[in-house]
């Protein structure tokens, strides 16, 4: 089915889910307001109309039970796609991700699979305040058995959703509210974006920029600006933070000998820490400069827009950091 008009991020997710629901009758949608209301932010509009209330299920406000239900349904052969709304609320389901879903297959000696997807939204940039704007993917990147994907644009949003639904492991799917209206012409036909595989979106020889999730926009902006100053940045869109595609990063750093990582989450204990630690451990002799991390500071995200803006990393911070590395 060709899609020639530009599609936005929100609809890309929607289409990814709907296509998989058409393809596979074991896929169903569950969460707060995902059915009749069409999603708290409209992402699942039309799904209940096409697939009926059995496959688009509204629940009480019970994040733990929603993810617990996913574990049990997946173990019984279904493929749940759940929504947890703002990622901050995933704090209430850490138990089900960590002790249950991520371990179940291994712990039971392979007796079950855990094919389910949980969507969680990061909302940095909207003044939504301390309980609504966090990026917590780092915790889930620490869990063997879990996968965590961070789409960067409508194309990868749809491709990763389809890959996540087809994956036989629990996948946390992180979607940024700030990208919902981002539009692009989509690839035609049925495609997936493979999980665990980073994409080199711009080649360069002077420095490797590893970008996570919606920070790709900033990375691309920074790369363009750096180009003006004669610095050729290679930009990698990581797409997955569990498992980390270190191969792609290593290959790039072998060329550039320098690396900066940008992510919306806090710098302290963020995914950039793991990438930097691994890089220096495995590529010590290839590095001509420290691996830099451009990320949120060690404080809370504020309601106040200017404070929030300062908190969130952007192209400007990245440019400054890269110039330090290269200079």
């Amino acid at each position, binding site marked *: 089915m060709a899609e020639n008009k530009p599609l936005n991020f929100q609809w890309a997710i929607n289409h990814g889910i709907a296509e998989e629901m058409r393809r596979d009758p074991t896929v169903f949608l569950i969460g707060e307001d995902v059915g009749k209301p069409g999603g708290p932010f409209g992402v699942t509009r039309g799904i209940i109309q096409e697939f009926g209330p059995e496959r688009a299920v509204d629940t009480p406000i019970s994040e733990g039970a929603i993810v617990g239900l996913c574990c049990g349904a997946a173990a019984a052969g279904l493929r749940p796609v759940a929504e947890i709304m703002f990622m901050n609320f995933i704090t209430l389901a850490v138990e089900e991700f960590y002790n249950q879903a991520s371990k179940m297959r291994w712990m039971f000696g392979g007796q079950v699979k855990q094919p389910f997807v949980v969507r969680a939204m990061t909302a940095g940039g909207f*003044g939504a*305040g301390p309980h609504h704007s966090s990026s917590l993917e780092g915790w889930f990147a620490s869990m063997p058995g879990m996968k965590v994907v961070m789409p960067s644009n409508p194309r990868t949003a749809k491709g990763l959703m389809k890959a996540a639904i087809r994956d036989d492991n629990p996948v946390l799917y992180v979607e940024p509210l700030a990208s919902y209206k981002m539009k692009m012409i989509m690839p035609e036909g049925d495609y997936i974006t493979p999980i665990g595989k980073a994409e080199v979106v711009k080649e360069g020889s002077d420095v490797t920029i590893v970008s996570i999730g919606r920070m790709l926009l900033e990375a691309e902006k920074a790369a363009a600006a750096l180009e003006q100053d004669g610095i050729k940045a290679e930009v990698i869109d990581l797409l997955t933070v569990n498992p980390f595609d270190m191969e792609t990063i290593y290959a790039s750093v072998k060329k550039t000998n320098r690396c900066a990582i940008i992510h919306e989450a806090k710098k302290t204990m963020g995914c950039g820490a793991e990438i930097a630690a691994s890089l220096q451990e495995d590529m010590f002799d290839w590095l001509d400069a420290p691996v830099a991390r451009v990320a949120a500071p060690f404080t809370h995200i504020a309601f106040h827009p200017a404070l929030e803006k300062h908190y969130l990393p952007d192209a400007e911070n990245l440019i400054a950091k890269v110039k330090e590395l290269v200079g």
Partner: protein
Amino acid sequence: MKISKDTKIDLYKRMVRQRTFEDNTTKIFAGGEMPGFLHLSQGEDAVAAGTCSNLTKEDVIFTTHRGHGCIIAKGADLKPMMAELFGRIDGCCRGRAGSMHFADISNGCMGSNGVVGEGMRISLGTAFAHKYNKTKNVVAVFFGEGATGTGAFHESFNMAATLKLPIIFVCSINLYAQMTPKEDHISIENVADRAAAYGAPGVTIDGNDVEKVYEEIDKAVKHCRAGKGPYMLECKTYRHHGHFEGDPCNYRPEGELEKWLKKDPIVLYEKKLKKEGVLDDKQIKELKEAAQKEVDKAVAFARQSPQPDIEELYKGIYA
């Protein structure tokens, strides 16, 4: 229960003050001057007023993302409150918290909460402190019917009952959890019946009848002050606005809002007070104007308050 004339006027004034504040924020928010998300409680005014009117200054409340009414009813100074909604440095929380995460400790609001249900878990500790310190103070924790699905509701009520903590669980049934109607996420008619699961009293009332709320809270407060543990009050009411400001509300059945507007708790009470001769039209007008004036001052205060410096981000993370 006989309610004194003074109390009646107090109840009315609280509601008017709440409503005036919220109606003004609606306009200001629509004008783009207020950042973030805004969840308002017009229509549920009687629940907050009837409850807080019957609490002392030392009693405290916990509220939700939809907490303005409760906070004002508890006696908040509107200036720092409005400044907080504007994100200014003179806001109660220095512009860090905004509407959803607001607190005003010195006036007895121990916190709103962006996470549904969590106020209940935290309220346990404050009630515990009251018991520990042998004060007779009580805690009122407000929440919506959606919150009754959370583990927080159950753990909190169960623990309050086990430890005999002085907590009044005040549930405001406004018919929706975001856009999902009550019958799609709750399998019983009256959630106050859940109090029986903990051996506590649970009462369901018309939440638009402010005197009824006041009366029932009176029983609850006595129960709690006597050391008998938690008490639940379920107030059936309605929110006139959407889940958040800007919500198109297309999930509402036709005529629903209109039906409830006829039961507006302020309008109802006005009629009653006039009939009883407690207030006349002139007095009502004066009270409303006084409230508007107070809000105008709060808005002026907020507008002149400076934006926080960037350093605010890094200040006071640790004590």
